[in-house]
């Protein structure tokens, strides 16, 4: 049986994770809190659960040290309120510890999925993307010692000794020599996977301020996180547009500050080109996302957009998502146009209005809640 402390530990983890859950809104709206570490490990700086006590205010207190130095010299680093673990006195350390709870991306996505009750996505199309996986199912005559297959090596040695008539059943010692050694070897297998691509389009016209872009950035982080948990390989493309559209890298997508008019059709056209060029709709799950403040230049351009959606984008994509960020300058007209044409509830189109940072989670839920 496990020690009862494992239950305390599980309880603690639950509380801590409960914290993540309860405060998930907060973390989401402050996307910067989540610090990537390595390739797929994330740490969330999180206070350990601190039992409040009457205690002295921190900085006025100062402290004592030992070592060389003259008055005025800096004392390196911060005061560590927790002494080293000593004998029989654990549980004595007080003070505010920061606890890094390490969550893998998968875990984070799972929490997100649970919190928002997101359904798993049912990929369309057949598994078409090839990827190779190495599995140790084969036997080879060379390899590192750590992969040596003892039984096969022994058998080989036994066979050789019998063949050479050096095996004595009375004294059944089998001594493998160099060429008896057998090693586990990798077989490369081809596995098929669902392929997915996300195409983010963002309006960077003058009316999209920093706050609006921050919202888009945070939201796309979480959307990526979720889609990555659903598809093993996922490609992400970024398009920014004002009156013209261009494809950019991630960094530019989030940092650029453009200005000028808005022709949404330019982005949709570019999106179409990208899909036609790189992503065969029969093989790829395609997720175009468009974020804008809803201000389009003209009614004619809106008409072009709707045509593009109807004739190309809808048929090829799993679902087209349009997120409208509220802005002081934007009219929000494009949202209305879309609703007028397709209605609020359309198979191929998900619409969402994002009022402010707190609206991000609801918006994610709207986008991903249908399991497409």
């Amino acid at each position, binding site marked *: 049986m496990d020690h009862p*402390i494992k*239950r305390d530990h599980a309880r603690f*983890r639950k509380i801590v994770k409960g914290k993540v859950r309860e405060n998930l809104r907060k973390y989401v709206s402050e996307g910067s809190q989540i610090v990537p570490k390595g390739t797929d490990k994330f740490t969330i700086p999180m206070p350990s*659960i601190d039992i*409040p006590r009457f205690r002295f205010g921190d900085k006025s207190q100062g402290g004592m*040290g030992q070592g060389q130095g003259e008055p005025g010299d800096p004392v390196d680093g911060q005061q560590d309120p927790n002494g080293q673990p000593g*004998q029989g006195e654990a549980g004595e350390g007080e003070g505010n510890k920061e606890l890094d709870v390490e969550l893998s991306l998968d875990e984070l996505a799972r929490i997100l999925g649970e919190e928002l009750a997101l359904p798993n996505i049912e990929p369309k199309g057949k598994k078409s993307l090839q990827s190779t996986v190495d599995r140790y199912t084969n036997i080879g005559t060379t390899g590192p010692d750590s992969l040596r297959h003892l039984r096969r090596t022994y058998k080989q040695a036994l066979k050789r000794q019998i063949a050479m008539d050096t095996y004595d059943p009375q004294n059944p010692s089998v001594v493998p020599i160099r060429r008896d050694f057998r090693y586990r070897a990798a077989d490369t297998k081809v596995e098929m996977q669902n392929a997915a691509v996300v195409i983010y389009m963002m309006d960077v016209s003058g009316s999209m301020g920093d706050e609006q872009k921050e919202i888009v950035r945070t939201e796309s982080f979480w959307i990526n996180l979720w889609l990555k948990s659903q598809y093993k390989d996922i490609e992400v493309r970024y398009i920014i547009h004002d009156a013209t559209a261009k494809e950019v890298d991630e960094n530019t997508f989030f940092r650029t500050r453009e200005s000028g008019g808005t022709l949404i059709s330019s982005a949709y056209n570019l999106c179409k080109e990208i899909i036609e060029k790189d992503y065969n709709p029969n093989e790829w799950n395609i997720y175009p996302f468009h974020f804008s403040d809803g201000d389009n230049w003209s009614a004619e351009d809106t008409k072009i957009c709707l045509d593009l959606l109807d004739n190309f984008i809808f048929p090829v994509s799993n679902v087209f998502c349009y997120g409208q960020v509220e802005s002081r300058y934007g009219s929000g007209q494009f949202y209305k146009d879309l609703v007028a044409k397709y209605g609020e509830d359309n198979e191929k189109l998900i619409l969402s209005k994002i009022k402010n940072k707190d609206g991000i989670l609801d918006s994610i839920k709207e986008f991903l809640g249908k399991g497409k």
Partner: protein
Amino acid sequence: MNRTKPITGELLNLKNEIEGYAIEAGLDFFPQVFEVCDYDTINILAAQGGFPSRYPHWKFGMDYDQLSKGYTYGLQKIYEMVINTDPCYAYLLAANNWVDQKIVMAHVYGHNDFFKNNAWFANTNRKMMDVMANHGTKIRRYMEKYGHDNVETFIDKVLSLENLLDINELFETPELKRERRELAERQMAEEAKGGYLIDDRSAALKSFMRSKERSSRTDNVEGNENEDVLAEDMKLRTKDVLGYLINYAPIEEWQADIIGILREEAYYFLPQRLTKIMNEGWASYWHSRIMTERALDASEIIEFADKHAGVMYMSKKQINPYKIGIELMRDIEYRWNRGMFGKEYNECTDMEEKLHWDKKLGLGRQKIFEVRKTHNDISFIDEFLTPEFCERQQLFTYKYNPRTNRFEIDSKDFAAIKQKLLSQLTNFGQPIIEVTDGNFRNRKELLLEHTHYGVDLDAQYVDATLRNLHAIWKRPVNLATKYEDKEVVFHFDGKEFKTLDS
């Protein structure tokens, strides 16, 4: 659970060898039991304050989480745990190498001797292993009966007040309490009757008289005399806030029991918090002596020196109790060996003479044994810290400089260092807070007073702690203190946290 195993074979032989050296050195200890365990078990034990069984609470899980991570990432490693019990249990990490085990064993005999002989441990319960296990059972039962969340929430609230202890309670025994109460009653009776100055009444008569006394006190005066007596009681000042709450807070029996349990455990650990420097100093002093004089093989010297130096690491950010403790113990021994104490020595103004002072008294060993018996960290520092010692140990105080936004060395002056050390040790490093009134403003509000010695309390923590206290007291709670140079009373009435206008 068989997570720990008694030592056998080589280790057992080693134990017998080291124990021999300890006896030879004059250490006086409880029977010593060593067990070995793996790192996970020692992390568990450390998280639970050394005990194999505690009440269920997430804080043990949290400490375990941190210790395990610390071990996994190589940040820290616990070599041994020793608990103040009779027989004295100590756990050794199975993965320790041979020299580690030797050091650790020698170190443990030091602790064991200290537990047995130091005055502050005199009244600790040496059967605490069983007590802790019983506490666990009790609380588990309460959880079954009243709900896990419910009980856990209550424990959280009590833990919030766990540091409000009165160190004098360590010397309180039921007998002492009864004697004192009886004495007070007798005096009262004598005053009322005009005094039996020579008390030659039989015990039976006395007890009869006393019961008469009591009943007449309550009978004669009509109305709520009892409540008045209670109200009088509630005005008693005490630093033992948990004890006060058990007696006067409007709580259910199981809640009072839980406060009692946590209070008992807190008082059990208190002597260790009062003697950290001495205890570690003493144990280190003895591991050093036993190792270097007897137990070490020549081939192990480097290994020992390396480990010992690791333990004695000096930090600029905080003082290392092992280091200060061992050096001060050695300093005392040296001074008493040479007679460097007393009027004559203190009044000597010739530095040269002082430096070479040697009366060849040889009292050092005797003195440190005496010191380990009677002192706690505060009196230890107060009495034996010397300017020469501070200089030799390169001690300094530091403080926060808001202009440069960093901590800077403040002073290397003896008086300042001593003052800082003592203030850090005062009331085991916790703010001095006592209950002064359970009927504050005549409204059954609770009043705590903080004795301010120059450092403000953290207001956010005051807020959060008062909230927890309110959940137990149920009427508004107050804390009088000084904050930013003003006398204030923090007040929490169940809804909002504010400062009272006085």
